[in-house]
């Protein structure tokens, strides 16, 4: 038997002055199941709550309706009050007769019927309330960090520093990422390696961090606190335990090919260390360029010279299975391929290069030892044109968004150029200079004023060769005239884009990504490092173009979120989650794609039919993942999927009560 108690709050005079509560009480008392109606001046106050508690006991109430202010205000308060006398906290409903009645309908004559309706509706819902219990899940206090660039390194260090174990997975043979390829960093012009290398070493040495380089996450299953990852350790052909990193192998290896780290501007051996500061400081054998694998199975020079016997041609890929409580994704970015710009030579002209190539040319550890030599003939370029927004802000051929970092690094390039080749002149074609950051505008000004970079506002239309130089044609839009520059080298600030396999990574790990392949944060303002999958966090440019300071800040934030999770022993989940009526569920899986949290999976059930047993598939909601939005319950035509707390029965009853 349902016994509903209704409590009407005056809220001082906030409600009572605008609503005739006596009349509300009178009409409410007539409703089916209502056994007790009471008014009180301030229900949320201690004595007010006590009134409710007392009445529950005295009148053996098993449902409570509070007519007061918005549930967004005091739902928790009254749930607690109700719970404290042994009634399930979810057997309580609130009728919002303040914000949505007395405060907006000040005339008693018209407001009172509204209040009556709202209370009746709340009673109708309360009658359909059922007791709800939260569920609890344990937490595996180990973090998985995917991607070993500056974002991943920072996140791993922060988590480890808080005392938790971290596995850092990097698909290249070394950690370091894009930042390792850079020469200097704006706006301070610190050497990139100088600030990155110590962190790499720290990550390599921290006993709580396990580095898995040359490795990739194959799959991730499970849910917050309880993920299971399969990690593929690619065959490196080098036994990392034996290798000392002495360098004999790569010094003796007779085969050279263009090096990835230098973007093909320099050469590396078939067995190689990507760059001198690599962590781990141990080589990898590239089977695609190694004579042993590609030709005759002979050569074996590296094996012969390796004193510790670390070379292992037979090594196979290996799969590790590990459990984690949280995941930080920091898989970084790529640069847009300017081969799609036919008007800039479609990537065919050797002296039209990307800005990252310029970084390698200018880097002391680069293929030219820091001398800016142009690729075609090694000449020192005197006239260098930098073009911004190549691929960025270009819906037609590139991406519509601003890549955020190009303005600043181009200013840096102009400065570095002038420092290295004092007789040079740089020209920068730009559309807008975006220098919003601490000391950024000042830095850009230095490039123009101190270093004499010639900034021309306009997008270049065409680059074509004339003799051994390049003609760059643009408009100086401030002048309103077409301009031409003859250049020795053209540097294109190509757009920052997502990794080409970002969608697959997102699908594999189970969160969403935008139309450009950047990973989507759970909320652009309030949850910028969370994904919509609980327990998976984002750091760095995999989420969107970002410079180093922003990346490091976000990595720290992601780490903080992980640590916050690990600080608990158990996760309590809200009980207002979706639930499946297995008997009704047909297993059509319509609910599955609609769930933003991947909380719905299929399970096999067996049931008796006649004398036999049959197996069939039905949906199952993981309450730890479900956020209770209810989208699945609408997708479910049969009504097998329901949302506790806002069930079909309850909303239906509310509609019927409202429309009386």
């Amino acid at each position: 038997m349902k016994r509903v108690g209704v409590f009407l709050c005056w809220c001082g005079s906030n409600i009572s002055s605008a609503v005739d509560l006596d009349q509300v009480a009178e009409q409410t008392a007539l409703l089916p199941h209502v056994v007790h109606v009471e008014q009180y001046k301030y229900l949320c106050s201690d004595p007010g709550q006590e009134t409710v508690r007392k009445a529950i006991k005295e009148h053996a109430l098993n449902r409570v309706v509070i007519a007061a202010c918005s549930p967004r205000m005091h739902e928790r308060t009254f749930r607690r009050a109700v719970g404290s006398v042994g009634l399930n906290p979810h057997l309580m409903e609130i009728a919002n007769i303040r914000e949505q009645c007395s405060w907006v309908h000040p005339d008693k004559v018209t407001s009172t019927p509204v209040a009556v309706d709202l209370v009746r509706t709340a009673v109708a819902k309360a009658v359909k309330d059922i007791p709800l219990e939260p569920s609890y899940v344990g937490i595996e206090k180990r973090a998985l960090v995917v991607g070993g660039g500056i974002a991943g390194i920072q996140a791993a260090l922060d988590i480890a520093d808080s005392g938790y174990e971290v596995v850092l997975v990097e698909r290249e043979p070394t950690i370091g990422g894009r930042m390792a390829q850079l020469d200097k960093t704006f706006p301070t012009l610190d050497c990139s390696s100088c600030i990155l290398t110590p962190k790499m070493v720290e990550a390599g040495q921290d006993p709580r961090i396990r580095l898995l380089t040359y490795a990739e996450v194959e799959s991730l299953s499970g849910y917050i606190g309880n993920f299971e990852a399969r990690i593929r350790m690619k065959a490196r052909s080098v036994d990392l335990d034996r290798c000392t990193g002495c360098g004999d192998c790569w010094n003796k290896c007779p085969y050279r090919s263009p090096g990835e780290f230098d973007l093909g501007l320099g050469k590396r051996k078939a067995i190689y260390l990507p760059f001198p500061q690599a962590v781990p400081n141990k080589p990898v054998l590239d089977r695609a360029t190694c004579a042993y694998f590609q030709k005759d199975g002979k050569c074996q020079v590296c094996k012969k010279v390796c004193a510790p016997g670390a070379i292992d041609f037979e090594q196979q890929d290996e799969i590790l299975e590990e459990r984690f409580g949280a995941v930080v994704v920091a898989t970084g970015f790529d640069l847009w391929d300017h081969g799609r710009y036919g008007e800039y030579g479609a990537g065919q002209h050797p002296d039209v290069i990307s800005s990252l190539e310029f970084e390698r040319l200018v880097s002391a550890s680069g293929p030219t030892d820091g001398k800016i030599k142009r690729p075609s003939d090694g000449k020192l370029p005197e006239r260098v044109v930098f073009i911004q927004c190549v691929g960025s802000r270009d819906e037609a051929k590139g991406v519509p968004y601003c890549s955020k970092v190009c303005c600043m690094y181009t200013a840096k390039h102009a400065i570095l150029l002038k420092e290295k080749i004092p007789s040079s002149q740089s020209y920068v074609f730009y559309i807008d200079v975006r220098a919003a950051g601490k000391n950024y505008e000042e830095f850009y000004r230095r490039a123009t004023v101190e270093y004499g970079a010639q900034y021309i506002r306009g997008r270049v239309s065409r680059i074509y060769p004339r003799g051994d130089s390049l003609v760059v044609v643009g408009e100086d839009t401030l002048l309103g005239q077409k301009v031409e520059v003859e250049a020795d080298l053209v540097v294109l600030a190509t757009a920052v884009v997502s990794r080409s396999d970002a969608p697959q990574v997102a699908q594999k790990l189970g969160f969403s990504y935008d139309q450009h392949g950047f990973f989507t944060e759970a909320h652009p303002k309030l949850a910028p490092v969370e994904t919509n999958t609980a327990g998976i966090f984002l750091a760095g440019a995999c989420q969107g173009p970002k410079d180093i300071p922003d990346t490091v800040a976000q990595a720290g934030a992601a780490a903080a979120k992980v640590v916050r999770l690990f600080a608990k022993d158990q996760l309590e989940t809200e009980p207002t989650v979706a639930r499946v009526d297995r008997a009704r569920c047909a297993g059509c899986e319509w609910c599955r794609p609609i769930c933003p949290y991947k909380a719905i999976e299929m399970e096999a059930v067996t049931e008796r039919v006649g004398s036999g047993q049959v197996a069939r598939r039905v949906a199952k909601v993981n309450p730890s993942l479900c956020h209770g939005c209810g989208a699945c319950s609408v997708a479910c035509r049969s009504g097998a999927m329901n949302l506790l707390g806002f069930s079909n029965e309850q909303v239906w009853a509310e509609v019927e009560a409202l429309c009386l």
Partner: protein
Amino acid sequence: MSVAEREPKIVGFLCNWCSYAGADLAGTSRTSYPTSVRVIRVPCSGRVNPQFVLRAFQLGADGVLVAGCHPGDCHYSTGNYFTRRRFLLVKRFLDYLGIDQRRFRLRWISASEGPKFAETIREMTEELRQLGPRDAAAVEAHAE
């Protein structure tokens, strides 16, 4: 009460995170609006089953309002996109069955848009008043 004076009845399904909070804001800022609306709180506009909407109409609602976060701002990230798709169809379909599509509204109302909520109710009330009670039109057509 004569037809002209009768206040139309609107059933409003408001999502907890944006629109319900927006309606609360109208209250805290004492922005008065017609007493025509009665609110049902749902976690997300994506929770609103079109069957609820038709039921409200059948039980005598003159208008139905579904309100949720602006597209892109859904608390559950994607719920309102599904809402929008679903009700693009439902609105036309209700109209096709003879429930004038002006009687149904889906609105994006954020937690800060108290005035927009009040304005929506005012507009809808006015329009519904002009449309007249729902059955009258049908009854008239039937009588021909």
